[in-house]
């Protein structure tokens, strides 16, 4: 563990430099410990924390506190976090319509992997992924790990427009694009469930530490779900089951 300088209004507690569920568990434990301390009125001047794959960034107001004060207060929390048990988050089973217009890279991924498109869908949808972090775009989940057979570098030519809802893979990660955006990942399919809604109490559907599986659905079923969700007749929570127990 080391503390890295991120200007005069943030510091980064770095636990390692790899994508690894064990590192993420330590990040989450520290995140929870800081949240508890703040709820108890400690750590004045802290604005927010940002958990990532392997580090936790603490953002603060340099007019209200100082790095030296904060570092002293964080020391104990970091030690405690290293020994904290961690719950395994919520479990989601999200519908996914693979291939066709929704997954324009499915055939290329299958070729590169030496598999049939059906085998790619099977490999992608039977794996349970952990949400390592959110970032890049509001609500964008970085999830892993993608089965070794499907691990490919990013496309050499990023698309200027990836449609919202696109399910994509790159290297060991998979994601769902909440927004239209440029993107260099391989598009396998589409998910109709909106990942971000500023009017919800928790605007992002997924949170770091959640587990996600995909359930293949037909185009007709996708269209039906999409229409029902847009009309507000379906609650995205229906694809969620309660948190699991500490493992």
């Amino acid at each position, binding site marked *: 563990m080391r503390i890295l300088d*991120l200007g005069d209004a943030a510091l980064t507690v*770095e636990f390692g430099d790899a994508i690894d569920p064990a590192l993420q568990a330590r990040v989450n434990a520290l995140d929870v410990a800081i949240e508890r301390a703040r709820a108890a009125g400690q750590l004045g001047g802290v604005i927010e924390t940002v958990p990532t794959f392997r580090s936790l960034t603490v953002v603060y107001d340099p007019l209200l506190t100082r790095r030296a004060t904060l570092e002293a207060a964080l020391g104990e929390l970091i030690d405690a976090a290293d020994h904290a048990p961690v719950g395994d988050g919520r479990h989601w089973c999200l519908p996914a319509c693979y291939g066709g217009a929704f997954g324009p890279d499915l055939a290329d991924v299958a070729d590169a992997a030496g598999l049939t498109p059906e085998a790619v869908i099977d490999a992608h949808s039977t794996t349970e992924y952990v949400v390592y972090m959110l970032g890049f775009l509001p609500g964008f989940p970085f999830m892993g790990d993608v089965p070794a057979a499907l691990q490919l570098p990013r496309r050499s030519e990023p698309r200027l427009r990836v449609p919202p809802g696109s399910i994509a893979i790159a290297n060991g990660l998979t994601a769902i694009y909440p927004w239209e955006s440029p993107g260099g990942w391989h598009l396998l399919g589409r998910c109709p469930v909106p990942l971000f809604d500023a009017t919800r109490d928790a605007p992002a559907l997924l949170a770091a530490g959640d587990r996600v599986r995909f359930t293949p659905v037909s185009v007709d079923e996708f269209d039906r779900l999409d229409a029902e969700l847009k009309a507000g007749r379906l609650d995205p929570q229906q694809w969620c089951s309660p948190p699991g127990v500490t493992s």
Partner: protein
Amino acid sequence: MSALEIRSPGALASIQDIGRRGWRRIGVPWAGTLAPQLLRIANTLVGNDALAPAIECFDGGQQFVAREGAVRLAVAGDAQLEHLTAEGKRSLVAWRSLTLADGETLRVVHTGTGRLAVVAVFGLARPLVLGSAATYARAALGGLEGRALQVGDRLSVIEPAPTPEHHLRQLPTPDAGPIRVVLGPQADHFAPASIEAFLSMPFEVTAEADRMGVRLAGEALLHRDAAAREIVSDAAVPGAIQVPGNGQPIVLLADGHTAGGYPKIATVITADLARLAERKPGEAVRFVAVSVAAAEDLARAAEQALQARLGNIVPLAGDGMIDLDALYSRNLLSGIIDGRDDDGDAA
């Protein structure tokens, strides 16, 4: 209620406040104005809460028209203004409030050395989205329909009481000095000679400079080795300076990504971030390193200086009166006779 009509948004104009906090963990950047000091000065000039939403303008060219009644505005920034009335046109310097009668126009015709101006509008209220009215266009949050302002947009505002206009008695002077940074978090990904080059060579602001960030061009900053060109993504903040494989730095600003996979060589300190955002394409930027503790001291000193400035906001002398004190301090500071107020209104 009256309304402010956007006749032209210029290069870019959007509604911004101080930004939304607390959502970076789900990928939502702060957004908010690139120039918080200008926001606080403009709002104080116009009689709003200092952190109220206002219109952030890039590079001049904006035109605003009062509709269905009077509208009071105030402009902070290195801008020249034109007030178009039934009688004709008068030129004004910024850093003052101004009331447009129904049908009158204010033009932000020129920004001087800086790119940014903030136009505060008396009684402008916008709904909060995730705690802020700031526009973040990528996710359609805040502002007006989550987007930049367009020709024909109308913002409803409160009609002002006929109270005196206010101005800032001593105008800020542009600071062309180097931009101060704290090295890290991934300075160790760069060859020592590149750190030296980063802190000694000038970099040019390219045309790719907006609310997300500023791409700079200069001597390529070489990573320690090929493996050091990328990191497993970690968090970024406004001011963080990413260096992708081509060695050309990108300074992230208010709309910048919350996390990224490029090593960050340094972070611009809080006190200097707006100074960097103000720089125009083609201008040179130099960086100098300071410690975290020194940067914190500078942030506090900058806040004290701003408080002193806000205390220097006073009513403008009435029509026909010349405020010699203001005239003297303005000309002394700006070094030019700016020919403000050709109708003799208030120095």
